């Protein structure tokens, strides 16, 4: 299965995996890639985590198969935890077991069966021509978990997030050099990330991460049901009986919300062109046809207007 090609020289050491909530990962806009072909690449978060691999979990919200232009199959999905969404994709490059699991999950999402998923995944990073940056995941291995294991994952993700928040705030008082951070007691595996993240992100607000952690702990303690958690985006509370229609509705709303936020982000004053909006929506994991349809709807219902043909702005 691994083929006969063995790389000469020393094998790279396996990169360790971060337990991380979706908000921290999805807000990252910084990446780092070594110059060598086999050098690992990293997404660097606001809290300074240098992420090549993560252990993440959540409610599988969407999983769709897409045929790409070169004839290969790509599964695109969304997984929600109390802090936000992870976008992930499984392609022909994935292992046989990962693809088999993905296919069985597609069937479950089609009939609206709620799935709590845990995955070990590689970080991916994508930049549009306009400079907008999106992160996504490529799962290596995954499995369905029960509420108890989800709760355990949440506690671990919370603990590690709190630890990173502490490292981050400790680093603010320190000299922004390697020696300065060592002297401030920052652990070795956080130093490189904190040095570049501070430079890239400037001052950040960690308050939202505290809120995320509090909500995640509520779920872990059983005070709140994981599957009906209130979330920033339109809520997903659905009864198994009418899962399909309401699921479709909330998905529609989500496409619209995403389109609006893309335009908000990229508009430099002249609006954002049709192609850019759609490329960004696809990068976020949405179907191009659906995004196009919703863009029309948004124009028709007056949320968007077109100052020039094919250029979109938010009304008001």
């Amino acid at each position, binding site marked *: 299965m691994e083929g006969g090609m063995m790389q000469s020289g020393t094998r790279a050491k396996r*990169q360790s995996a971060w337990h991380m909530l979706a908000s921290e990962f999805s807000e990252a806009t910084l990446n780092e890639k070594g110059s060598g072909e086999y050098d690992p690449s990293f997404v660097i978060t606001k809290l300074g985590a240098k992420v090549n691999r993560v252990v993440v979990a959540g409610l599988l919200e969407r999983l769709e198969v897409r045929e790409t232009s070169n004839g290969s199959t790509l599964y695109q999905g969304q997984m929600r935890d109390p802090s936000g969404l992870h976008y992930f994709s499984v392609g022909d490059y994935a292992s046989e077991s990962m693809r088999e699991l993905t296919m069985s999950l597609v069937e479950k999402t089609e009939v609206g069966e709620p799935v709590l998923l845990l995955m070990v995944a590689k970080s991916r990073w994508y930049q549009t021509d306009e400079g907008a940056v999106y992160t996504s995941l490529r799962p290596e291995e995954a499995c369905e978990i029960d509420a108890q294991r989800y709760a355990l994952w949440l506690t671990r993700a919370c603990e590690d997030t709190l630890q990173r928040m502490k490292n981050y705030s400790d680093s603010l008082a320190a000299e922004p050099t390697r020696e300065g951070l060592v002297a401030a007691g920052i652990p070795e595996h956080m130093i490189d990330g904190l040095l570049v993240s501070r430079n890239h992100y400037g001052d950040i607000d960690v308050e939202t991460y505290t809120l995320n952690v509090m909500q995640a702990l509520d779920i872990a303690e059983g005070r709140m049901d994981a599957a009906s958690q209130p979330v920033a985006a339109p809520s997903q509370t659905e009864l198994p009986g009418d899962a399909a229609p309401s699921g479709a509705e909330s998905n529609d709303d989500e496409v619209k919300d995403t389109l609006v936020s893309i335009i908000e982000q990229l508009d430099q004053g002249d609006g954002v062109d049709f192609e850019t909006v759609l490329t960004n929506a696809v990068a976020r994991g949405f179907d191009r046809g659906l995004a196009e349809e919703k863009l029309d709807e948004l124009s028709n219902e007056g949320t968007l207007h077109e100052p020039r043909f094919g250029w979109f702005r938010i009304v008001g």
Partner: protein
Amino acid sequence: MSLNINQSTRIAVVREGTRPVTAPGEPQDIDSLPSDGYVCVVGRILASRPDQIHRKDGSGSIDIVRGRLADESGTIGFLSWEPLEHEVGTLLKIEGAQVRTFRDTPELNFGRTTKIEIYHDKNFSDADTLSQQTVLTLSELRDGARDVDAVVQITEWTKRSFTRDGEERFLWSGQIADPTGRCRMSAWSELPITEDKLPITVRLKGVRVRAWQGIPDITVDNADQVEFLDAPPWDSDLDLTTHTAEVELFELSTGASRVGVSTSATVVSVREDSGFIQRCTECRRVLRDGACAEHGPNDGNTDIRLRLAIDDGRSSVSLLTNKQATLSLLGMTESELQDTVNDLGQVAFVQSLRGKMLGRTIKASGRTIVDEQGAMMLADGAAMVDEDAGLRATEIRAQWKVA
């Protein structure tokens, strides 16, 4: 314009100034010496003895002096190609010594151009204080180390004979342990140890370390390197034959290879070749497509193992559980496991293992092999750790003061 470079052109490589520049004659701490290059150190002689190196071509031997030098930062072995008359305890300033790394252990070499002189510093620690640093625990042993002092318990001891050059010779070897782990010890001369005295605690002085397949092996060359103690300096109720030292994964992944250790970490991968495997009948390597990389195609012997990756957020270690540990971890007999694999097929079987293990904490015990390709743990015991999420969440709130 162009430069023409031909046979008569002289080309000199000018070294760029990227190396740390150390002023000549400026002494460096022993624990921060580079792994090669010329250095200056100030240190006290802790050990010194004449030795000989035999030329490989059989044309005779060279007299050398081996020993150990210490300052307050650490100790280092030395090899002098020139006569060295200074006694143990003498404080020396040594300029132009060359650092060479033998196996995993750096060593100072003194040659014709090395300048050695007696140094005066009343505040420099005496030999007794400095020699405390050469007392190592088994967890600190590195391949190639010399002049090692340690206090260990001998738990097994046997005499073996072998023939070299038509002559029967003897070697004594066995298992030793201290609270940080276990390893092997070999002696080239007989020690007054009988089976009924075991376990027996000894102080080892000036012994050397070799490693076989990552496991350190202490070599005792003379009986006078071993001093027998009445009682161990640790809790004497500790049964070191079964004791495992609990070590954090990060420490295991960055330290020396160790035996008799246990650790806990998150399972982040269950490899597709977990379960039943075929091992080469010659060398126990896992067969790929019915063939051994070394010994070619063979029927192989059936074995059971899991190949996992475990992780603590800072380091990742490859974990291999042996047959017994695998069966006990899965709670199955060999035939139950065979039935399960037959029913599910290999891919679904591995996926079922992920369903049980991925993202969960595992506790494993056994030995580690650490080399430049990373760390590997060979486990003879493994169990999933049960955790209570609600309790954990409450602890986190209290510990981090999040309401």
